[in-house]
């Protein structure tokens, strides 16, 4: 029990740190992207460079702090956007059924027939979009699972006596959907959203690792990793720092999401 109570603290510390980086990186590391060709690649521990520098002489640490923004903001937008679509469409599809439900479930089937990474790669690659186009594409790719999740919970709630009572009271559909059903779906939706942030983080950085999404020169963890392949023999810091940051952030969000989900499940059992 006590071990599980530690989870919000254990995950909160790294997440708070990342959040500070995202909000304040322009003041913490104003010169992160400044190039210093003279220096070139240096290994970790070189004077003033904790994790060394890359081939353009940029400080790995500063670059990683500056990269927190593009690593985290997009995924948050993706998770939020796809859950908003999920809630709107999933609620309607789940409660009303009919052609909308059929159409949405077929759309989801179609998208789930292919790996997300593949579709994201092909679509963003072919249309040459920037960061926000990638975000948009990922929202489209994430939304079917969210629609399904919300739809499932809405259907589970709709059969419960309190919803049937609301129907018998003659309450309007919108009122039943948004006042009665939705508040009971939101907890699950929130924890799913959190897990989606982690998944989106990995997907976004994977795309920039493949050279898509983030424009050249923009600080980004995925791109740092991609660059590090050529520096491995000279500066292991270029690999270890961004890799650790991605892994820790994703794991912390996942842990927190899992913990929340379990708590919500326990609460609904107690009811």
């Amino acid at each position: 029990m006590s071990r599980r109570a530690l989870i919000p603290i254990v995950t909160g510390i790294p997440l708070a740190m990342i959040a500070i980086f995202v909000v304040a990186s322009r003041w913490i590391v104003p010169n992160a992207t400044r190039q210093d060709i003279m220096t070139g690649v240096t290994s970790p521990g070189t004077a003033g460079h904790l994790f060394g520098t890359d081939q353009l002489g940029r400080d790995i640490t500063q670059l990683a702090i500056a990269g927190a923004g593009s690593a985290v903001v997009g995924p948050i937008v993706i998770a939020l956007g796809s859950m908003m679509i999920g809630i709107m469409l999933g609620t309607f599809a789940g409660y009303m059924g009919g052609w909308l439900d059929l159409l949405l479930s077929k759309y989801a089937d179609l998208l789930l027939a292919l790996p997300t990474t593949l579709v994201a790669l092909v679509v963003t690659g072919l249309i040459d979009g920037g960061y926000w186009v990638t975000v948009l594409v990922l929202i489209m790719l994430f939304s079917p699972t969210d629609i399904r999740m919300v739809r499932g919970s809405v259907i589970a709630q709709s059969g419960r006596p309190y919803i049937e009572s609301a129907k018998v009271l003659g309450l309007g559909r919108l009122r039943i959907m948004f006042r009665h059903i939705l508040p009971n779906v939101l907890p699950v939706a929130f924890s799913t959203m959190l897990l989606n942030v982690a998944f989106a983080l990995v997907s976004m950085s994977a795309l920039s690792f493949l050279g898509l999404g983030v424009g050249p020169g923009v600080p980004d963890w995925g791109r740092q990793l991609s660059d590090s392949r050529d520096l491995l023999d000279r500066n292991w810091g270029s690999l270890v720092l961004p890799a650790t940051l991605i892994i820790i952030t994703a794991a912390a969000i996942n842990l927190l999401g899992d913990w929340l989900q379990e708590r919500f499940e326990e609460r609904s059992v107690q009811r």
Partner: protein
Amino acid sequence: MDTAHSHRRLTQLLSRGSLTRFIVVRLAATGLLLLVLSFVVFALLHLTPGDPARNLVGVRNVTPELLQSIRDKYHLNDPFMSQYLQWLGNVLHGDFGESIRNNTTVTTLLSDRVTLTLQLAGLSFVLTVLIAVPLGIAAAWRTGSVLDRSVSVASIVGIGAPTYAVGLLLLYIFGLWLDIFPVYGSGDGGFDRWWHLVLPAITLASGLAAMVFKLTRTAVVAELNQDYVAFAQSRGLSHRQIRSLVLRNAMIPVATSLGLVFAFLFGGTILVEVTFALQGIGSLLAGSVTFKDLPVVQAITLLTATVIALTALAVDVFYYAVDPRVRKRGSR
């Protein structure tokens, strides 16, 4: 008479609950899904910004004659639907056109590389199943134990960790630092090939194993909480008998998760092949996308979809074999 007889025979074959009907219905659904996907994949050519003909020319010098010959070759002036049908007809004969980047047919290009990807995927899948399923069962049997807690935490890290980051770290540690495994490349066939595939396969399996572990554990825990387990204990059944009861029931959700993993497996190969510079289908796709080598992209996308759809079909047939309830209901 004869038609009546064959009609009766057909109705019998397709009657509710028969395996044939089940497979026929499933096959039809799979076929339909692939048909729709093929349409979307074909449409990629026209959805890609710019003139399709120009896109198909690639980096060659664009001359009006060349454009015209491309248009003729790909029937780009025909109505959309007829272009699609011609393309589909070729695809069904194994002809995906010519690669823009390399001057060979897509089919040759793919057949050179498909073996490596299949070897990588196969090795990862075997690793995943051998590691994750037993661990998941063991953890579920002793929830809260040190084993359960440590593997559960590791699986959360594993699920969140991006494949390529893990790959690069392994590459650095075992390839460069400890110098046990080769760093890049696909090896020279035979044992050397497999030796080159060890690190990539471990990389790919790490994320998948985390997922399969979690799903297996959840499935077994759910079964252990069922009344039939308590009832079996109360009747004095041996530990071994109870384990076989539980595993037989848990097998159904676990098999589903393994089917699901397949989709992730093929998504993962792209990143792993790029990370380890392996000459497989995945790295070919990544390169082709950047180069806008559309025929190759179309072929790989459709191929992947087919493999995944067939896996889903296999999982369904497996269901039918092990779950009597599904058999009773027939095709859902």
